[in-house]
């Protein structure tokens, strides 16, 4: 009996073969990997023991984890790589039983979807498909033309096991948006981090015909839009199919990105105009092919805005170590004449790898704002940027960035920044259309900038510096007294800072900003100070005016806690409908310092990179700042910062 059935099956496979499908009649009723799962049935067939990741972490059935492999990932992340699983693919399996009285062809397809960073498939208001669910990161087999695969199942009242493979890759829909010059640039839509679900669809031949092409082939659009298959099968018309089983696995795969910070720093010629001095290149920092292929980080060169031109006091000092005082600040503010000032702009490194170091032993990165001297007079920003873009994720960094205030609570002029920035690229990386007036066209333009429906610019920031909150606005702007340069009267030039500044003298401000490019579409788009609640906390979001491209929340924290300890954690939790900024001494002690949602700001949905910088800002960008950049000395000593870990999950 068994032999006869086997023969029939092989004939079926050979006649109507779909490769990669292996039916193992020997294990029809076996359960040798101890999967216990629900059995789902329809009139024609039953399904059980769907295991979407049968070759990965076999001992862990419910929750599995994989770290993104950054090696040779310039073409996009692949989950898993052949380094992680020899076959370079996940294997999945399920068992099917034919409930009819004759051998039947059934059809199956596997879908996966990122569940952590998705829009609900159902629109809460209309109860129909959420149009934004097309943005969800879902996929199936890489060849989107492979719609359903056929299996021929005998009517033997037994379960037959089916094995197949798939992997998670970028641009899983093979969307033309990410194909340029015939090349599918999968890196332009990298797999998201977070949890992935797996949906097995098995359908009878008759019902298959009723499944729309744009569901069977995820590359296809319906009325110009992709349609989310999860919605179709679980909530939409597909749910009504009599002989269709949508089997959503209970087990999830958690994808985490944790680039090795000791894995080297790549130097991009384009950032240095091709004129860089390469004398600091070394095995862990430079442009060799190994670094090009494998380094997860590259040196970041800040955009230097001409508005950073300053006439700086001609003083070189170590504010942090020399105990630079408020009186020093005040004297320097009053008693240098214009002709003594140094015209300067904020600088960036001209010698890549001089101020950034990747330490393979400690698996950390060290950055430093370089010291300067008489005649050189420079304030040089420093930073690093990731090389692989992602959309959404909880970005957590463990860092020991420079202290910003000295013992006298005088600011050293630096802004510690942990921020996400658009990966650029133009059309392929456009944000979602802004349907109300459009976005401001450029991030640097003024109020008269034209508005356009699509931009690729996005930015989400932690910027930490000495500046007062804008909200509540009854104490903004601080009322600073005007000093008088009378050296016969100390009180005339050594003016005290106002109480609203000195009350929080030891604090720095954690500014949390989303650059929404002034898109007016959010329901509660506002200007001035507007409160927003999150889990019992009220945050004050501030926007200067309706053309202002960024929304900012500020929270004051002690400099000693954030930058005086051995390390500290900063986290940007970027979700499709909200952004949460957290800080804390350890990952389990994070506290929220900023919160925004899509009701108040346009949350970006394009691909971004993470940057960590110690940068000099023109304080004209920060109204109310008690210390002005041009009145702070040039650095006498290097100002180091260390980055110990970056985890995106």
């Amino acid at each position, binding site marked *: 009996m068994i032999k006869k059935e086997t023969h029939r099956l092989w004939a079926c496979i050979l006649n109507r073969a779909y490769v990669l499908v292996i039916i193992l009649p020997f294990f029809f009723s076996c359960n040798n990997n101890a999967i216990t799962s629900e059995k789902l049935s329809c009139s024609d067939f039953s399904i059980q023991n769907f295991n979407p990741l049968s070759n990965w972490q076999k001992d862990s059935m419910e929750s599995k984890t994989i770290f993104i492999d950054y090696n040779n990932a310039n073409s996009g992340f692949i989950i898993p790589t052949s380094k992680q699983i020899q076959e370079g693919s996940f294997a999945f399996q399920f068992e099917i039983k034919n409930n009819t009285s004759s051998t039947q062809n059934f059809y199956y397809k596997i879908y996966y979807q990122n569940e952590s960073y998705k829009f609900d498939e159902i629109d809460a208001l209309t109860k129909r498909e959420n149009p934004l669910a097309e943005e969800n990161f879902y996929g199936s087999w890489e060849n989107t033309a492979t719609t359903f695969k056929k299996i021929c199942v005998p009517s033997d009242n037994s379960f037959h096991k089916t094995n197949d493979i798939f992997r998670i890759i970028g641009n899983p829909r093979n969307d033309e948006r990410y194909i340029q010059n015939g090349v599918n640039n999968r890196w332009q839509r990298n797999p998201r981090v977070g949890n992935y679900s797996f949906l097995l669809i098995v359908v009878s031949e008759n019902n298959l015909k009723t499944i729309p092409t744009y569901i069977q082939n995820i590359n296809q659009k319906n009325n110009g839009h992709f349609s989310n298959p999860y919605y179709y099968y679980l909530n939409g018309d597909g749910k009504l199919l009599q002989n269709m089983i949508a089997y959503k696995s209970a087990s999830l795969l958690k994808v985490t990105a944790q680039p090795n910070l000791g894995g080297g720093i790549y130097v991009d010629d384009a950032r240095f105009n091709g004129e860089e001095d390469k004398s600091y290149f070394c095995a862990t920092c430079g442009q060799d092919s190994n670094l090009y292929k494998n380094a997860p980080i590259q040196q970041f060169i800040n955009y230097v805005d001409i508005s950073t*031109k300053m*006439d700086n006091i*001609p*003083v*070189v000092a170590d504010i942090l170590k020399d*105990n630079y*005082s*408020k*009186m*020093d600040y005040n*004297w320097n*503010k*009053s*008693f*240098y*004449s*214009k*002709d*003594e*000032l*140094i*015209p*300067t*702009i904020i*600088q960036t490194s001209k010698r890549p790898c001089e101020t950034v170091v990747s330490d393979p032993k400690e698996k950390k990165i060290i950055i430093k704002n370089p010291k300067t*001297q*008489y*005649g*050189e*007079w*420079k304030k040089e920003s420093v930073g690093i940027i990731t090389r692989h873009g992602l959309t959404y994720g909880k970005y957590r960094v463990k860092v020991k960035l420079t202290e910003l205030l000295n013992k*006298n609570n005088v600011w050293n002029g630096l802004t510690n920044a942990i921020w996400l920035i658009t990966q650029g690229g133009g059309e392929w990386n456009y944000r979602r259309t802004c349907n109300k007036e459009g976005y401001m066209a450029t991030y640097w333009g003024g109020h*008269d900038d*034209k508005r356009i429906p699509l931009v690729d610019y996005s930015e989400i920031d932690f910027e930490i510096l000495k500046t007062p909150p804008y909200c*509540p*606005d*009854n*104490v*903004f*702007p*601080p*009322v*600073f*007294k*005007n*000093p*008088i*340069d*009378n*050296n*016969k*009267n*100390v009180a*005339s030039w*050594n*003016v005290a800072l*106002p*109480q*609203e500044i000195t009350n929080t003298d030891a604090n720095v401000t954690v500014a949390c900003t989303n650059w929404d490019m002034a898109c007016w579409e959010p329901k509660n788009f506002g200007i001035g100070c507007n409160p927003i609640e999150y889990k019992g906390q009220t945050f004050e979001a501030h926007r200067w005016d309706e053309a202002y491209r960024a929304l900012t929340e500020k929270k004051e924290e002690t400099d000693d806690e954030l930058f005086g300890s051995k390390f500290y954690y900063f986290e940007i939790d970027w979700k499709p409908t909200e952004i949460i900024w957290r800080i804390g001494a350890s990952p389990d002690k994070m506290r929220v310092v900023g919160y925004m949602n899509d009701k108040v700001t346009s949350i970006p949905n394009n691909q971004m990179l993470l940057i960590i910088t110690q940068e000099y800002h023109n304080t004209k960008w920060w109204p109310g700042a008690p210390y002005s950049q041009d009145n702070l000395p040039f650095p*006498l000593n290097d100002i180091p910062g260390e980055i110990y870990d970056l985890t995106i999950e």
Partner: protein
Amino acid sequence: MNDQKKRFIVFSIIVFSGFTGAFLFLKKNVPIAETTVATEQPQDTLVTVSLLTEYFDFESSGNASITSEKAFSGKKSSKLSPNLEYGFGVNHLLSDIPSYKNLTSISLAFQCITENMDTSALYVFAINDKTGKNIYWNGVPILSKKKDTWSNDTIHFEIKPEFLIPENSLTLYAWNRNKKIVFIDDLTVNYYGMAEAKTTSQKEATNTNFFFDFETTTGLNGIETIKETTAHSGKFACDLTGNKEYGPSVIKKIKDVSAEPIKKIKLSIWVYPLTDHPNTVITASVTNSKNETVFWGGKSSENNHFPKNQWSKINAAFILPIEKITPEDLLTVNIWNKGKSDVIVDDLEIVYGESAERRGAPSTLDANAIYEKHFITERNKPPFKTIWLQKQEIKNENSTSIVSDKKSETADFSPNDSFLTGNFDKDKSNLDEVLCIKSNRVGMFRYSQEKKEFLNIWESLNRTDSIWNEINSFSSGDFNNDGKSDVLVLNKKNQAWSVIEFDGKKWSVKSKGDKNNLNKSWVSKFETPSLGNSKDVFKSSDFLFPGNYFGERSPEILKLNTDWRFDLKLVEQEKDGYTILGNVDFKGYPNDNNPKYYEFVKIVCGKFLSSNKTSLIVMMRNCADNNFKGTRCNLFESLPELPNSTQVYSIEGGSTN
């Protein structure tokens, strides 16, 4: 002796010791106390600046000439064609241009491209009066340097002062008189005028910070609401209970708070609501001579949380329309209880205008040279390197006394005292002593290299019958060429003189005479440093302190000027003149008590710590006199954050940065 007379005598001592010391320096390179040289004071100058700059890239202009056929930048430019005789134009009322009264010329810079280098087109500058009648017209050809290639062109128009009437309008437009094809892009229009470039001689800034705690009513109008009540500071505050709508006002003429136009006013007030949801407004307004309100601004508590029975602050800042304001206008700050709820307000702070600009002419440094690292210093021009004076430990606990025993009154060095330095007492250390001459006593001190502190080696009451009395002036030097420092005592009235020498226990006269046999060179007037560039380096008000500050053979001159700030520089004499080696600053002082921050500082130099290196005794004090001018203080005050002190400094290793 009355105070005036005392002051005169002390002053004479200072001046005389200065002159004599300088003389000795020139003659023998022996340190002197202090002196001055004469140079010219700098003056303010007029410079041409751009009063207004406009830029047109034509990307978003609605002018009929705009085309996207060609563009130098972006996608659009302005096109003159056979169908279009007049191109893009700019039109302004004179009064719309900031400081239009200073307008002297207009410059247009633009890119153009044409089929023929002689375009025959003009840029026209016209002025019309308030009726629209043209009163001036000038046209300058638009020239293209290259055919069929974008090239830049600049056109310049002068404006005569008689046209600078606010109602007049000016127009700039392209005239395609021969109807050729010309494209113009990236037009920049600069309106140039004269402005005063202030130099370091500019006037002192006046106080623009005002604080009213309502404990007194000076400077306030409408004071009936001020009474003793719950107060943020003191006992008095403004009580706006019982439907009272207005609190006190501060009314000032613009010219009374600033010689310059005030662009901004900053205000703050503390509010204590007695009910929920107060609506208290702090306002600023400007009224002109016709009693017309030309500006009004207010900031209310209404949209913020002001808890009941709690002090909360309102800050406000208003930008004032300077083009509408004259110095005679009244600027009024007022407290308005708009909600008429019960509220108390206190501690009104007003800051008129913004911080004064720094003094001096703008820096002429080449930012590119610094950026590209080929910056070269120019002799005697800032920025200068910094030379550090390191504080030396003398075990006086940073008190005003030069010795650790604070009981010695003579040792309590004050900037009001006179000092002589020299190697008066030949001992094995070969160090200089410092002689402190007070009005009522005199003492001599020397540093003990063994004990690492100054010791009092001689002291005397300065009785009127003593030679140290105020009839005489004093100077130090080796007047008898015996290798040891003496003191020349000169009677200010009759020029009788004596040279006295210290014998280890007392001062005794070694020679004396009258005005007939006074060696004139001893008291000759100090000669101004005579090398060619001395006027570039020295000012008449400088105090000079020659010495061997690096311990090397060739001496340097330390010069101090306190006209504006504590400005200490080290100068080197070279064959062709003087070179400023750098700004001199201090290191190692306690807390942030940098000597240069004190109101009254006196420096005495000498080889106090080492026989081959000059050190400074620095007396630093603050003065409580109301109108302290920097030369003598009647009442010293020791501020907690800046305690009075006497310290010793010397250069260590010639460190600079």
